[in-house]
């Protein structure tokens, strides 16, 4: 299937940033009619290498050939001219424009939208994309936005496509759809490069795998002839055990009870609708859901960082004492042992200060301790050393600003700090976001250690395979509601995938996301009212009949009030 002259050939490419050698003498061939996966740990130079193809960086040494001719790619424009298109992790789209306008944006010549639209339709038909060129980007799901990005590069005539971690934000179903499209593009003779951390995806999609380790090219293998274990070993450079433990919870007791939590964002959009669940000690409660289904709001509400419209979050002590967390400030909640480690997309935005060094970042949690007016770096320095040692953080020293560490190491510092402080409840979101497999397994191990210590762990994850292996129970969020809570040991990926898109996971053919949202928005006020009523009557649990009755009554009351107002 693959064409025997490489579409792109990288010769002896090196690139340094300051002291960091991102790529060192890399040779790599990319062929048409083939999907090449690039594997490597965090900071192994995958993205840097691809950025040199797309004209963002310029190599310090070495040269690039396209179709056998040496070329100089000095700008992204030049890269497009050579038929190379890159789909970045973060989309570069203008929200208020339509898909077609976004595609046309930046191209020379007159704006002929009609023509653009029909060409986009043709591209969609050819490869099986599903997107409406006239839809505004802000109305699109993540996967649709990604599709627009892909169409954008195809429209510009790219036949060498590079995708940087395209599946990180997709549901399993969407990933499958993307893979179908990629295969059809491959069969059309395009060269496809995909950067990913997920082994199962490498196996599912790629024809060949190239491995980078610490900026160096290690080798390539035909995907069909290798195993995940072998790939990981190549990537890490030593034997790695790829197994997530899931010990049975020891004496689980209710620790945090969330009841009827409803949260509205600053713009008035409902982010959580009547969410109830209980997290137990010694247990990992996984939270699954499409990105933006309310995961962030849920954790922040528990940690006291989020304004809550209604509901309760109760902290339960072993001796039966109860304490309401809502209304407390984040500091008090922290001091009670509820710790949040949220890894945002930019990794640094929450919890760490990029300009500060490791020790100072440890001090962020503890600097208030002691009555002195002054800070002391002694204890934090010790903590930093402990975290560096236990989590194998690779850093020049503990006096290096965190910003200079690679993504994986930054995350280890963040998660490590929360763990070292011996929490009772550990809330973690996207702890392995963008982490390579080795670092990710270290984190899973750490979470399991916490579980064994009796900590109630709430783990918001993106990778369903991992959730299914790690979590004791999995709570599935769908558009801010609890779609269901399933046993981690029994659930299947398909079941959870369905629950992520429709509440309860029942089969509703043709029920796309927009429809679900519309439906949900319609019946939402009712649910709120119910909850309001529930709060007033002082009971948390009521049967349906009761609710119904109260609701009717309230409606009548509402009607009366209206009349009153008119008088």
């Amino acid at each position, binding site marked *: 299937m693959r064409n025997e002259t490489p579409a792109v050939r990288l010769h002896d490419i090196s690139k340094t940033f300051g002291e960091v050698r991102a790529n060192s003498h890399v040779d790599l061939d990319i062929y048409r009619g083939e999907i090449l996966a690039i594997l490597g740990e965090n900071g192994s130079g995958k993205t840097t290498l691809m950025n040199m193809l797309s004209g963002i960086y*310029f190599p310090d040494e070495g040269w690039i050939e396209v179709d056998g001719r040496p070329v*100089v790619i000095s700008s992204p424009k030049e890269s497009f001219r*050579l038929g190379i298109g890159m789909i970045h992790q973060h989309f570069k789209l203008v929200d208020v424009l339509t898909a077609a306008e976004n595609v046309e944006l930046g191209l020379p010549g007159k704006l002929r939208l009609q023509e653009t639209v029909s060409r986009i339709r043709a591209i969609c038909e050819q490869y099986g994309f599903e997107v409406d060129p006239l839809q505004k980007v802000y109305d699109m799901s993540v996967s649709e936005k990604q599709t627009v990005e892909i169409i954008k590069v195809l429209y510009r005539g790219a036949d060498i496509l590079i995708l940087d971690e395209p599946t990180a934000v997709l549901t399993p179903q969407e990933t499958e759809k993307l893979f179908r499209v990629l295969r059809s593009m491959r069969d059309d003779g395009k060269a496809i490069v995909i950067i990913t951390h997920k082994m199962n995806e490498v196996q599912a999609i790629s024809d060949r795998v190239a491995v980078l380790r610490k900026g160096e090219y290690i080798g390539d293998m035909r995907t069909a002839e290798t195993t995940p274990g072998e790939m990981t070993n190549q990537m890490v450079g030593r034997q790695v055990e790829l197994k997530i433990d899931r010990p049975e919870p020891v004496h689980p007791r209710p620790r945090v009870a969330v009841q009827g939590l409803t949260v509205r964002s600053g713009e008035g959009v409902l982010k959580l609708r009547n969410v109830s669940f209980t997290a137990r000690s010694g247990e990992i409660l996984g939270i699954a859901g499409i990105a933006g289904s309310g995961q962030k709001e849920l954790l922040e509400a528990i940690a006291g960082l989020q304004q809550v419209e209604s509901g309760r979050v109760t902290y339960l002590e072993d001796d039966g004492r109860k304490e309401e967390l809502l209304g407390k400030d984040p500091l008090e909640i922290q001091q009670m042992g509820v710790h949040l480690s949220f890894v945002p997309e930019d990794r640094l935005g929450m919890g*760490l200060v*990029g300009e500060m060094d490791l020790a100072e970042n440890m001090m962020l949690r503890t600097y208030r301790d002691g009555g002195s*007016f002054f*800070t002391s770096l002694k204890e934090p320095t010790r903590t930093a050393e402990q975290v560096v040692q236990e989590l194998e953080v690779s850093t020049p020293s503990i006096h290096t600003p965190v910003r200079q560490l690679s993504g994986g190491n930054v995350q280890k510092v963040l998660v490590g700090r929360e763990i070292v402080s011996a929490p009772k409840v550990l809330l973690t979101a996207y702890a392995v976001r963008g982490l390579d497999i080795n670092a990710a397994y270290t984190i899973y191990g750490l979470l399991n250690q916490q579980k064994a210590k009796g900590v109630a762990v709430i783990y918001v994850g993106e990778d369903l395979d991992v959730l299914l292996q790690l979590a004791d129970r999995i709570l599935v969020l769908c558009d801010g509601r609890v779609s269901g809570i399933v046993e981690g040991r029994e659930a299947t990926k398909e079941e959870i995938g369905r629950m992520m898109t429709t509440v309860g996971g029942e089969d509703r053919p043709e029920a796309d996301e927009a429809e679900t949202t519309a439906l949900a928005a319609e019946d939402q006020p009712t649910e709120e009212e119910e909850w309001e009523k529930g709060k007033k009557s002082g009971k948390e649990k009521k049967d349906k009949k009761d609710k119904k009755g109260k609701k009717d009554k309230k409606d009548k009351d509402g009607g009366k009030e209206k009349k009153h107002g008119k008088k």
Partner: protein
Amino acid sequence: MAKSEEKREPLLHISARAPMPWYFSVAVRLSCIIVSLLFCTLLTWLITGVDPIAFSVTVFQASFPAKAAMFGIKFWPMLRDLSILLLLALAVTPAFRMRFWNIGAEGQTLMGCLGAAACMKLLAGVIPNEWIIVCEVIAALLAGALWGLLPAIFKAHFGTNETLFTLMMNYIATQLVAFFCILWENPKGSGTIGIINQNGALRGMGWLPVIGGNKYLLTIIVAGAFTLLMYFYLYRSKQGFELSVVGESERTANYLGIKVRRVTIRTMILSGALCGLTGLLLTAGENHTLTTTLAGGRGFTAVMVSWLAKFNPFIMILASFLLVFMEKGAGDIATKFSLNKSFSEILTGIILFFIIASDFFIRYKVRFRHGAKIPEGGVSRV
């Protein structure tokens, strides 16, 4: 063979540098200053025809403090100017570390002056001198703090733009001072306040004491003490730690339970109060009067000092020295060669530009296109 379009490598490569040893960055900065002086010489020669050699000799002579005296730069007054500038720079720095762009030091200082002057004017003869001074200190601190507090409250609660707010507060302060200058004018009809408590029984009432027979010494000592205090406050205290976290990332601060609003307000009170203190020194310490130009734009120059020093109090001593010295020096050189005041300001501007630009060369490496190593036709790999 003509090089094809696509083979051209970009002319310049700019890439981040590894952190460099301190002597390298000092060398870079020094060479930038030297280049800037050469550039000034060249420019002066081209524009005014002043003999470049005589000019540069003068410039280099003026650069050595020992010889500076012959250019009219006197030691004590210069040290006093340095101290005032340093105090104002120290005052704006906590706000800056918090990324709160307080450019209202001018107004906050004037308010301090006003507070002190009011006590001198109204309390003289009413209560004992020591009590006047105590009241002055309190009034100046409060007035400055109030001028810092107002923009902070609006920023913290309504997200108002602090830069515009503090700037506007300067005008209000100036007008307030102008109003009181007329209200308290002395003698009548002069439109100015004159020296407060200059004659008769009230002479010297509310004036800050002169230490060691040198009327500049108090200001200098206060500036020195606050440099130390501010250093420890910013780098060693819990409050200093909090405000830099707020500056780096408000989200992180929230997440850690730091009360961002409280820190914003607290820091601006501190910032304003320190400006007010400087106002006190200006009015009750040295000038014993109130005018709208007491701060004389130093509230703005202080912003530059703070930035040049990257918010480090000790480096601010150097930066204020540089600015005070340069301003005086450039002015005197311009006079010597019969150039006007504006020209000396152009020279100061050029030198500052070069100093700031030196940062770029410390942070980034610029490399020219290197020779084409690409073999024609490519090489097949073995």
